[in-house]
């Protein structure tokens, strides 16, 4: 299995999904060899992690992993130390592919499973060497990341080429499946939908935060990029504050829209009520969820949206955009179109003001989320493997 990131060194849903899936596959007796650009000292006990030992830069490489094509030049500026990292993300991908090729030649395996475009070329190479079936797992497409404007032709070409050559494509939602059919001209019967999931374990439900004594808290958590719709969140915040000025709007995450968004908040006159928390992980991330009275995911194009499941597991009422994959699998939440700022604001105010609504959603969503586990997606993957092998 070719992956790009893995907890604790992950920047988003991709790493989390790989973790959940491989752990469940392992439980079901599948022996997974998980190839990463590099690994930390701490290895999970259930998985055979293989590092390609690509040279690493000591600082926050997570930003790079989830870079959007727009800020590739930024990365170059940020990490000018040539020779150590590679000229840019594409070079990193190239290095990954070359090393993976060599690795693939010397190992034995039955199925190749590659996650997202950065590892697709490695997957194709391994298939050519070994003649084993190739499964591509699409957690996100170039169309999602760019909203369809200014797509990076190079990335798109990598995706399209690999999809053509793959034996099976796994989409994380019907929403994504549709995108793959529409934009990559892949036949529907080659694409299987395997929704992401979540394993609930030991959730800390302590909600004792000083901020909650004074304010009600709305939370946006995700990369601050066009794809995630943080600007819609901000416009909704402005509307909400007209009615309920004791609400504070947290933006947790980093990304290329962070600065413009701060400026936007200032120009809307609400910068004192919008709190930018930056990129969070571990305990801080957990606290952000527990602090929230409502979680908002206004994504413009969201292949899945694991954060919605995480918020539900923390007993926070969730508002998600209908343009998301998670929308297909959860019921006890509020759903809006991302562009409908008035409706988003209406729902934020309602869920905060109407106690019985708040309570009802939490009760139902908490019990709904208990039915989720990575076992089901893992089982679906195994069926896909078996089909390809027979």
């Amino acid at each position, binding site marked *: 299995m070719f992956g790009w990131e893995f907890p604790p060194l992950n920047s988003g849903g991709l790493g989390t999904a790989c973790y959940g899936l491989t752990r469940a596959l392992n439980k079901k007796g599948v022996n997974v060899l998980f190839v990463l650009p590099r690994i930390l000292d701490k290895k999970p006990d259930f998985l055979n992690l293989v590092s390609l030992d690509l040279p690493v830069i000591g600082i926050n490489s997570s930003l790079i992993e989830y870079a959007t094509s727009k800020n590739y030049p930024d990365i170059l500026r940020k990490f000018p130390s040539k020779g150590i990292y590679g000229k840019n993300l594409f070079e990193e991908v190239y290095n990954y592919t070359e090393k993976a090729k060599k690795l693939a030649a010397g190992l034995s395996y039955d199925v190749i499973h590659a996650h997202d475009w950065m590892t697709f070329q490695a997957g194709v190479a391994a298939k050519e060497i070994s003649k084993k079936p190739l499964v591509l797992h699409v957690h996100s497409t170039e169309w999602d990341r760019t909203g369809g404007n200014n797509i990076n032709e190079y990335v798109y070409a990598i995706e399209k080429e690999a999809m053509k050559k793959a034996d099976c494509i796994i989409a994380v939602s019907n929403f994504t499946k549709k995108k793959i059919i529409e934009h990559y001209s892949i036949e529907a019967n080659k694409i299987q939908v395997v929704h992401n999931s979540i394993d609930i374990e030991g959730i800390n439900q302590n909600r004792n935060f000083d901020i909650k004594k004074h304010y009600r808290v709305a939370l946006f958590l995700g990369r601050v990029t066009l794809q995630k719709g943080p600007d819609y969140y901000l416009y909704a915040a402005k*509307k909400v504050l007209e*009615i309920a000025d004791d609400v504070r709007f947290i933006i947790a995450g980093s990304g290329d829209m962070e600065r413009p968004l701060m400026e936007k908040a200032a120009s809307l006159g609400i910068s004192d009520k919008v709190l930018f928390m930056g990129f969070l992980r571990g305990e801080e991330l957990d606290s952000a969820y527990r602090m929230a009275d409502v979680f908002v995911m206004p994504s413009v194009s969201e292949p899945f949206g694991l954060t919605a499941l995480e918020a539900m597991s923390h007993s926070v009422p969730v508002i998600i955009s209908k343009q998301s994959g998670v929308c297909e699998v959860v*019921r*006890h939440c*509020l*759903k809006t179109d991302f562009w409908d700022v*008035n*409706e988003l*604001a*209406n*729902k934020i*105010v*309602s869920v905060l*003001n*109407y*106690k*019985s*609504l708040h*309570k*009802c*959603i939490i*009760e*139902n969503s908490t019990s709904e989320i208990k039915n989720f586990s990575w076992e089901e997606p893992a089982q679906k993957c195994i069926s896909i493997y078996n089909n390809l092998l027979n």
Partner: protein
Amino acid sequence: MVSVCFYFQVHQPYRIRNYSVFEIGKNHNYFNDLKNAEVLKKVAEKCYKPANKTILKLINKLNGKFKVAYSLTGPIIEQLEAYAPEVLDSFKELVDTGCVELLDETYYHSLSFLYSKKEFQEQVMIHRRKMKELFDFTPKVFRNTELIYNNELASMVGEMGYKGILAEGASHILGWKSPNYLYKAKGSSIKLLLKNYHLSDDIAFRFSEKSWREYPLTADKFSEWINAVNGNGFVVNLFMDYETFGEHHWEDTGIFNFLEHFPKEFLDRSYNDFVTPSEAVERYRAMDELDIPFAVSWADIERDLSAWLGNDMQRDAIKKLYELEEDVLSSEDNKLISDWRKLQISDHFYYMCTKWFADGDVHKYFNPFDSPYDAFISFMNILNDIKIRIKEVKEMAKVDSNSLANVPEDKKFWVCDGRVLRNRFELAAALKNMNTGTYGYHANKNKNDFAKWVNDIMGDKKLADALLKAKNSALAAREVEIRINELKKK
């Protein structure tokens, strides 16, 4: 012999529209007229028209031996009047045959019995008057919304003069008792007719179910089943939504064909007949007393109130709605009262049900909302708008009572030109005849003494707002006169 008693419920709600929190206080239109008209016209074509036609034909063909009962709610009558008056005419024609009986219920198809006995009785009276006015018919038998029933209801309805009442006959409610007999309600002499849910649901739910082992249901087979009750009961009560014919089961399932052939098949067997609810009550004695202290209904498998009041949102919404009763009724604002009553239609709470949300089922039937949460949000936003309307009416009333009188001596208005004002008449006169300097002294971009005086002393916010907008003293005078005329009319 055995009798069959048919009763059909005819109802369509006034569905509310998606009403945002940002509309509160600004928009008093709550109902989704477009969707309501669309649903009504569709159901009229698919069900009401062909079903009425079939039943009229049967009555004529069988020389009055075929009989049915209907309960028509206020909302369906009003909407038929608006969108399909010819259907209402066909109901009148049916009632005129003498073979069709009408039942009474709460006009607004409400759950009022559970929250306000006074409102409940009032709504029954409204319904009663409507039946008289429209059909020249006075019902003798009562059915409560969704067949919700308990001892207390029976007593109250008995005291209101009804001879019979309908209720659900599910076995877990009846125990060993058969729904095919009549019973006497505990604590009242009113007789109970119990729905034979088995045979009713064979038509209402299972008729077009291909996986059902009795599929297809023929008139002959069904007549046999009912005939088998012979000796074990007096009357088989077949109670169902009228939409069963043509809407729940489309025409191509053969449902109309079944309806057309069943009566003759049934009558051909051993002295069987059809009775209306009031005939059943007169003809058959009560076999036993039935004690039902807790509310039962005909909804879902639970046959309780959980379809409307099962979760916190539903209970919260309905409680807040009835809390407004006194204020709404004392407002004497007919539009406000009617809006408030339309919000009592039980369907609004049905749409908020989360119980069956996962499976998708009858709760989705013409449900205007994607989720129970959306249904709740719009409903509560509307309630908050109603509250604002109540407040406005109250403020108006306050103004009215001392509207044109003088303000207290120490609250007089001292105009800078020396005049002293005590009431609106004097204010109007003074403004009419006031030079720009004087007016500008009191009303300029920094302040408006007239508006402040009218607002603070007279409590007349409406006039104050108008004065703030007036560009000069003449226009201000005009506003005062308009307001005086408005108050005089009250």
